[in-house]
């Protein structure tokens, strides 16, 4: 079956001009054209199948928003092939955007001064949503996103969480089969974040929408995505299952032990103590160097244990390690594509 998104060897270069300041500078800007070429996207290749929920990660300036802009059709690439829903996004703008939904961070897709319900109605007209579909979707979103509290409030008066919910409703009103979400949980409190995540999971599982999620919040990724794509400096560093990422790079795991007695020395080989709080001790050990069961065996042989648990590393730490220690450097050839694309 055709993938819903197919990207082959995508390149996007920007010519950045040296900008001179001031009145005299404006003249210089006209006369001299010092520039350099910045490669925002450098040979990206991937495809996404219908129904996937993909996390798209990368530090700022990595090329994430450039990729999104190309996929949504508002930016034209320098070279490469892109097909979304069988179309070339920037060539058939109106037909393309009619089938997708997109919410970008804190930008509104609704109208600032209008009550939410009126914005939604206007979107209905713009997207030519059939009356029955509109009714159905509206009722559904009102329930799932709890819109009734602020349905008649103008968007400018909404809180961040409310505004994000309203925007999500607006983006999905026309039943798009592909949804781009850029930082949907940014600035929200824990409860609101969870609500948004549940909604995203819902539209992916129950409504079958393909979702591309870019985020800096790695808990979003942990809780929602099975597949993760990591981009940096315009290259795709990793494209595969989240678990594979963790397995390969989640260097350290933790073992938390509750001892029966307050033993003076609870050290153990191949693990170091990172925290000691009364009877509870937290050990850290390197994955691959020693297994959890070996450590548990050693400890239980020497001491009486009441309880224990094994903690996986935070994806946060894993990703940070990858960036800082450059664990996924492009070896001068092709990008380090890892894992299977869509198991």
């Amino acid at each position, binding site marked *: 079956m055709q993938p819903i998104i197919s990207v082959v060897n995508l390149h996007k270069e920007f010519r950045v001009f040296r900008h001179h*300041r*001031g*009145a005299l500078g*404006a003249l210089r800007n006209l006369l001299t054209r010092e520039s350099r070429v910045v490669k925002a996207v450098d040979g990206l290749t991937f495809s996404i199948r219908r129904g996937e929920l993909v996390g798209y990660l990368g530090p700022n300036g990595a090329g994430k928003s450039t990729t999104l802009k190309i996929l949504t059709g508002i930016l034209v690439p320098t070279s490469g092939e892109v097909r979304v829903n069988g179309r070339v996004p920037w060539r058939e703008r109106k037909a393309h955007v009619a089938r997708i939904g997109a919410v970008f961070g804190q930008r509104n897709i609704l109208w600032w001064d209008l009550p939410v319900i009126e914005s939604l109605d206007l979107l209905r007209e713009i997207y030519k949503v059939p009356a029955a579909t509109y009714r159905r979707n509206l009722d559904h979103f009102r329930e799932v996103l709890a819109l009734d509290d602020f349905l008649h409030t103008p968007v400018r008066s909404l809180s961040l969480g409310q505004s994000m919910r309203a925007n999500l409703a607006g983006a999905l009103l026309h039943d798009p089969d592909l949804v781009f979400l850029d930082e949907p949980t940014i600035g929200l409190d824990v409860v609101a974040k969870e609500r948004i995540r549940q909604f995203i999971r819902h539209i992916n599982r129950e409504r079958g929408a393909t979702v591309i999620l870019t985020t800096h919040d790695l808990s979003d990724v942990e809780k929602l995505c099975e597949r993760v794509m990591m981009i940096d400096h315009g290259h795709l560093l990793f494209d595969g299952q989240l678990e594979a990422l963790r397995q390969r790079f989640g260097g350290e795991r933790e073992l938390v032990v509750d001892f029966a007695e307050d033993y003076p020395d609870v050290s153990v080989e191949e693990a170091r103590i990172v925290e000691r709080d009364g009877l509870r001790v937290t050990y850290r050990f390197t994955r691959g160097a020693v297994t959890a069961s070996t450590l548990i065996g050693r400890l239980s042989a020497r001491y009486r244990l009441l309880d224990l648990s094994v903690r996986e590393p935070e994806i946060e730490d894993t990703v940070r390690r990858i960036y800082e220690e450059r664990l996924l450097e492009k070896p001068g050839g092709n990008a380090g594509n890892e894992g299977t694309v869509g198991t």
Partner: protein
Amino acid sequence: MRPHEAQSVRGGEAASADWPAYAALARMAFQRQLAYRFANVSGLLTNGFFGLLRAYVLIALFGARHAGRVAGYSIGDAITYTGLTQALIAYIALWGWWDLMRSIRTGEVASDLSRPLDFFWYWCAQDFGRAAAQMLVRGLPIMAAYALVFRITLPPTPLHWLALLVTLALALFLSFCWRFIVSLSAFWMQDAVGIGRMAWIVVTFLSGFLMPVAFLPDWMQALMRYTFFPAMINTVVEVYLGLLDGPALLGALAAQLLWAVILYALARLVLAAGVRKLVIQGG
């Protein structure tokens, strides 16, 4: 804000020890205005272009009379008039000045009022700094351009040059007092911006900016001269062009000074009322 905190309004005289502070404020405003480089240049071009248009209209009005004088103005005087008035636009902020009104609307004014500087002079010093910068980047270049393109009139004697400096300072002070008073309306009115816009239009109309006052019908001239608006622009024009001599010149400057004193007193009254309102009702 408690009454004793509005200390900058009591007394109202600029203590001699404060002069360095006001000078610093003026210098800061001067530099700030110079930094708006692109706005300055595009403003200059716009002012210049409109000056050109106005010059041609006046030439067309003179028509066959271009050899002689109308109401004391030669054609050269009239052309110079258009350049001079265009040069003054930025200097006296003819089309609006919103800093103080904005400060009142955002509530920043409360912190302005609790500074150990007199509120009126605090704003006046900054306005003078701004005006000096505008004269430098928008006023003088226009006059220079005019001198290149047309045959313009210059003040005839050193005395007139001196009088010009005096009249420019007084005109600016007058304009500032007016803008100050209008801006203070924000203490009482939500739609102060609308009032402000009307106020600037009134200046445009009655100051002799659009046409030399002398060209207008006698009854209009009489009406205008009962107000202080011509003292903002028309007096400067007449001094510059040397249309006033001896006692007439002194009289015009004295009238400007008198208006300045009156408006200053009015500004003080309105400010005191505004502060009272702020203190009692919390703004």
